[in-house]
């Protein structure tokens, strides 16, 4: 480890060797983050491809599954929810589930009782 750089305002900049920070902030390394980003980009490409290719009845489920997979991947790894305290997961997913439940019910109501 070497501490050799200053940015001119009194803040120290530490440069650690790759071995020292191999385990990143919450157990993932920078290389793993890049790999996850590549996977997310590939899933986005697949989504766009699906919208141009006629794949029949699996079109909608495939898009929804890809969307959920991307969503969960970002939340779990980029937002560190997979590695963090479970109370954070509860806070977030409770809001999310409540939102999905409320609006699915609302849309269903409009669907069945709307003019």
């Amino acid at each position, binding site marked *: 480890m070497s501490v050799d*750089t200053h*940015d001119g*305002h*009194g*803040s*120290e*900049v*530490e*440069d*650690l060797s790759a071995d020292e*920070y191999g385990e*990143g*902030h919450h157990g993932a390394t*920078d290389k793993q*983050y*890049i790999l*996850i*980003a590549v996977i*997310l*980009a590939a899933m*986005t490409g697949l*989504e*766009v491809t*699906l*919208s*141009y290719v006629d794949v029949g009845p699996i079109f*909608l489920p495939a*898009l*929804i599954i*890809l*969307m959920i997979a*991307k*969503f969960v991947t*970002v*939340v779990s*790894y*980029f*937002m*560190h929810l997979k590695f963090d*305290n*479970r*109370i*954070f997961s509860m*806070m*977030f*997913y*409770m*809001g*999310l589930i*409540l*939102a*999905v439940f*409320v*609006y699915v019910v*609302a*849309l269903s109501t*409009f669907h069945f009782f709307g003019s």
Partner: protein
Amino acid sequence: MSDAGTPGATPPEDKTSGHGAPDLGNDPSSPGNALTETIDEIPMGGIPGPGPAPDVDTGAERSGLTDMPEESAERDEHGGHASTTGISNNKLAMWLFLGSECLLFGGLISTYMLYRGRHSGSLGPDQIYDIPFTSVSSFVLLMSSLTMVLAVSSVARGNLRNTKLWLTITALLGATFVGGQVYEFTTFYREGLGFTTSLFSSSFFTLTGFHGVHVTVGIIMLMALVGMISRGRVTGDRAEVVELIGLYWHFVDIVWIVIFTLVYLIPA
């Protein structure tokens, strides 16, 4: 009376359970029982008069009660203030805020889904959207999430120079996304799709506009953060602020993941 500091004595065990909550069971070494034990040992004769206080072991030091103020001032591993739950209050508040934001965007997305068929024939979603352009915008925002997580990773290692670099790149990618959105809105307007043209256009502009405002707020926070780091105000124990802004930025990204699929890719 106290053997806590006696060499060879059994070291005190971690009296926490679950998420750091103290275990208040019938453990004889628990603070409550230690105090009771101490009261029993106070000699009869009442309270001593004025004068130097006798050196009485109250049991508080042994039980760690006197350390409470110092302990509460400590910070957790991410630099946030430690709380009785053992987790950062700031981070908990941010997650709570993001959970409530799900309700906001859920309402806007639902409104769009409800009204996306309410338009004049030639200015509907299937005619007006430019999927290749929006796909590139989505890719840009997705990559900004990568640069943001690299910034958080850098600050966790104490590398402030790389943190500033990644934060600046994140802000630039965000600005590119917002620029693309402004271009898209301008194009739609020139084609005749204004905010009040139809229920479809109103719900579309409201939904994507709200998201764009969130991205813009995120860019402002990122640039403010870069300025704070440059002035040396985000060091060591305050590094958690980078993670908090990162959480906000990733949330903006996941909202767009949903919007891109439900609004742009699924035909009306």
